[in-house]
Every structure is written in structure tokens, then in C-alpha cells.
């Protein structure tokens, strides 16, 4: 059994997802503690050409599982084969795709599963993970039971690790072992559609301006878009705003939407319901604008601005543009 740390490196549209860079760095950190190497399991469009470059972020080796846009779950059989070859832990992003692949591994090889975690380390040769539970009110530490098989499967929240930039290393690339004949390979994309409106991938955004029911209409998102563009960020929403049809569901943040961890989250006209909170509470800085001084979001925001979003947001946009000289 090797001491390697494996990680899922998903590629889309020719380049690695941000999670792939974060996990490369995280795997390298853990590998230095376990005495092994960080090994990328790279899949998706662009993986064949891009896998070596993961070396710059910490990967020592990269195994290319495939280069086409079949659904992530269809790559799970190849991940299972790679995981059979060893490794102490396998890091997967806590995204729908990452969870699908992780779950399949757990079920096929009877592996312990952790997550979504906010920290992981090796202590005396065993992986130890930290997870926020009970609505973030408790932090638990967990480890595998004695005698559990490896690799331990660890779901990792976005931004748990900060990608090393500017490394010059190149990962040694190899082709995947033959994938096992598992049922998951039968999942196919029957049709693929782009959303009507142009939407960005919120999981990758570092600044998010989110609007809720208080935004009151589709047009109400106009000022939020202006603010987002002044800040160089993206627009997101609560489920109430998405349910109302003011914004596409791909931009919903929360338990059943995207889990985001930007450096700055600004929520306007959002009350801060628990299901929304679990999708954004790990943002580094949370600013809330709400006209209700008792809104629950005021209890966990870093900066709580009591006022009318339609007055404050345009004024803030002007002020930011003035300071940036744009």
C-alpha cells in the first residue's frame, strides 16, 4: 500500500476546474505528512493536455482517465481501478460530480467517507478530518475506524486549500488502467442545453453579489449586476428569487443550489434562512444589506447594513467606481 494522496481533477471546456488546483495543493500538503506523492486522477475535456500542468500546483503524478465530456459518474469505474492500486486518501470536491464519484468509490470498495470537510491532516499515519455540523454550531473531528480499508474518501469544500501558484513543476502523466466494467458507464448525456441567459459558474467566483426576494423583480437585479461588475464579481441568488423566475436556477446559492466560498459575498434582500446559509456561510467576508434590522442574516454577517438595497447598492457602485477610477 502506497502512502500517496489521490485527488479528482475535473476538467471542463479545456481547462482544470478551480477545485482541481485547490486539491492539487491540498493533496501535496497531505502527501508531505503521509510520506507519499500527490496523484491527480484527471478527467473531462482538456484533461489529456492539461494534466501535466497540475504539477505547478503540487501534483507529482497525473493519471488521465479520459478526455471527453461524458458525465463525471461515467468516469467512476476508472477512478475505482486507480484507487485499487493504493493510496491513503482520495480527495474529491464537494460538488455534485465529486460526490457522485466519491459515493461510488465508497460503495464499490467499502471505504470510509468524510465530509464535506473544512480541514484534513495526517496524525500518526491516520487521516483526521474536520467538519462543521449542526448548522455550523459544532466542529467535529473524525477518523477511520481501526482496520478500515484505504484510501479514505474525503469530500473537500471549495477554498479549503489555496492553490499554489507559479510553481514550475510538471506532473508525470500516465494513462489510466483499464476501467472496470461497472454499471456507471451506462449513464449517458442524452441532451445538453445551455441556459437562456448567460450564467457563470458560481463555484469558481471570488466575489458574489446575491439577491433575494427583496430584489422584487427581474429588473431589480440590474443594480446588483452593476455592483458585481464594478467589483469584478458574479451575481447569485436565493431560492426565493430563482423560484420567482427572476434569475436562472444555476445561480441559486444554498443547500439545493451552489455551495460557494468567495472571498466576498454581498447579500441584498436576503433574510438568511438556514438553507441559504449553508451555501455561503464559509465565504471569507459576508456583507448583508437588508431593510429589516432583525433579519437573521444580521446575526452571522461580518458587516450588516440596515437599509433599502435600491438606495444603497447604486450609491455603493458609484463609490467603488470612483475609488477604482473606472
Amino acid at each position, binding site marked *: 500500500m502506497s502512502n500517496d494522496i489521490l485527488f479528482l481533477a475535473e476538467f471542463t471546456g479545456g481547462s482544470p476546474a478551480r477545485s482541481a488546483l485547490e486539491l492539487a495543493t491540498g493533496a501535496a500538503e497531505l502527501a508531505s505528512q503521509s510520506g507519499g506523492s500527490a496523484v491527480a486522477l484527471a478527467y473531462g475535456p482538456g484533461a489529456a493536455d492539461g494534466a501535466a500542468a497540475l504539477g505547478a500546483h503540487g501534483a507529482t503524478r497525473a493519471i488521465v482517465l479520459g478526455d471527453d465530456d461524458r458525465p463525471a*459518474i461515467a468516469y467512476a469505474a476508472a477512478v475505482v481501478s486507480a484507487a485499487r492500486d493504493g493510496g491513503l486518501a482520495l480527495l474529491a470536491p464537494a460538488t455534485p460530480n465529486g460526490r457522485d464519484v466519491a459515493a461510488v468509490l465508497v460503495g464499490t470498495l467499502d471505504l470510509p467517507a468524510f465530509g464535506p470537510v473544512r480541514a484534513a491532516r495526517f496524525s500518526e499515519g491516520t487521516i483526521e478530518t474536520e467538519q462543521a455540523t449542526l448548522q455550523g454550531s459544532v*466542529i467535529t473531528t473524525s477518523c477511520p475506524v481501526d482496520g478500515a480499508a484505504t484510501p479514505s474518501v474525503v469530500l473537500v469544500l471549495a477554498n479549503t486549500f489555496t492553490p499554489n501558484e507559479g510553481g514550475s513543476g510538471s506532473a508525470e502523466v500516465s494513462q489510466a488502467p483499464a476501467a472496470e466494467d461497472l454499471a456507471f458507464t451506462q449513464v449517458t448525456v442524452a441532451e445538453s442545453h445551455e*441556459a437562456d441567459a448567460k*450564467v457563470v459558474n458560481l463555484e469558481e467566483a471570488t466575489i458574489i453579489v446575491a439577491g433575494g426576494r427583496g430584489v422584487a423583480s427581474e429588473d431589480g437585479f440590474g443594480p446588483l449586476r452593476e455592483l458585481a461588475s464594478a467589483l469584478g464579481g458574479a451575481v447569485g441568488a436565493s431560492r426565493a428569487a430563482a423560484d420567482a423566475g427572476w434569475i436562472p*436556477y444555476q445561480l441559486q446559492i444554498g443547500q*439545493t443550489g451552489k455551495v460557494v466560498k468567495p472571498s466576498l459575498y454581498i447579500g441584498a434582500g436576503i433574510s438568511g434562512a438556514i438553507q441559504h446559509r449553508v451555501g455561503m456561510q464559509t465565504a471569507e467576508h459576508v456583507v448583508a444589506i437588508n431593510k429589516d434590522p432583525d433579519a437573521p442574516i444580521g446575526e452571522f454577517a*461580518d458587516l450588516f447594513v440596515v437599509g433599502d438595497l435600491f438606495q444603497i447598492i447604486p450609491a455603493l457602485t458609484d463609490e467603488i467606481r470612483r*475609488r477604482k477610477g473606472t
Partner: protein
Amino acid sequence: MKIVVCIKQVPATGADKRYADDLRLDRAGVEAIINPLDEYAIEQALRLVDDGSVESVTYLSMGPEQASEALRRALAMGGDDAVLVTDPALAGADEWGTAKVLAAALDKLAPDVALMGMASDDARGSLVPGAVAAMRNLPLLSYGAELNVADGAARVRRLSATGYDWLSAPLPLVATVTDQVGEPRYASLKGIMAAKRKPMQTWSLSDIGLSADDLHGAALTRVTDTRAPEEKPPTERIENLPAAEAATKIADWLTTRKLI
């Protein structure tokens, strides 16, 4: 065409929960509900009955005796019968242990579709469905905003980062749906009365061909410590200021933190 919906009983969202001294979740005295996301799976299954593409709906839960209340509530919404797997050896089951048990029970029930919620409220792992699929070597169609079945296959509409896909796989399979399938129906008074007469079985581990030894104490993971999260600095407030002044203060706050 037969669907089994897997539902979990969980403590009510937002209820005051804590860890007991043995580092297991203390569920005493907390109101228990059907995992809210599983209600959407129930709704999806019942819609497939309504449109005639499915003949029967069975509910399956693993949990303590009280979980039969959740099954009874599901039966009041609709569906035909229910199975509770309960066994003292299952206390403290993790997602692997839960999947092991559900997979064995599903082998016995042999549905065309085993339908689950996208996540349980109290764990948020979303790992049980995929692990069950793997243990039974069946395809997984996950995170459906919509599910349909026809001609020996199922399809789900799944949001992608920038749009949506229809994913397809041959039956039998495991599927999960999200809260976008439509609001769960309420149980009518008639439904509640009818539910009392619907069959409910209770199975132990040996009924599904498992022994406590197969289950390693029902978990491959254990909690070794719990603690309070790091103290956050108190919320700063900006109140009762004209918009322009508030904007200046917010911009100062952002500038100090190098966010602009």
C-alpha cells in the same frame, strides 16, 4: 413499474441538536420529521403514479422504531406500503453502513427505480445513493430536477454549471431528485386515514441477509472530538445613515480588507 423511495427520519430543521457524551447525535426530545429533501422524492414518485408510468410505490427507511412515524406520514401522502429496517446493531451507522443496509433491503425489494433525496438534512454528505448504486452495481442518475421513466430507461434533467443536461440510463437503477421537482403534496385527511391500513413491515438485519459482523459496528468512520467553532468577531452594523454615507462606510470597510 415499481419504485422504492428511501426516506430518512431526521431532527426538525433548525431544532436544537447536540452531541451526547458518546459522540453520537443526541436525538432525544427533538421533533422528528421526514428529511425535507426526501419529500421531493416522494412527490416525484407520486407524480409518476399520477401520470400512469409507475404502478406501485414502496417506502423504505432504516432507523429506530420511531422512524415508522415518518413512513406512516409518507403513506398518508400516497403510495402503497412501507418497510422499516431496524436493528440494535445499526445505532451510529455512518453513510457506508446505511448504504450497506439499504442496498441489502433493495436487493430483496428489487424495484425498477430506487429513488432518494439529494441529501439528508443532518449529514449533508449525499453519499448514500451513489454508494447503494455501487453496492448493487446499478447506474446512478443523480440530482434530477425532473425524472421520467419509459421504455426500459430513466432520464433526469440535471442542472449543469451553465445550463442543463438530460442524463439517461437503463433500468433498474438508483436516482436522486432535488427540490425542483415540485412542491410536495400535503397529506389529506382521507390520506391520513387510508395510511393507517396500508401494510408496513419491520425487518431486522437477518431478514435482509446481513449480520452485525458484516457491518463493522455499522460505521467505517468515528467522531473523535467535538468543539465549538472559532469565535467570529462580532457583526459590525451600519444603520440610520443616508445611502451615500452608508456607501462610503461600506467602501471603507471593503478597502481595509483589500476587497477593492
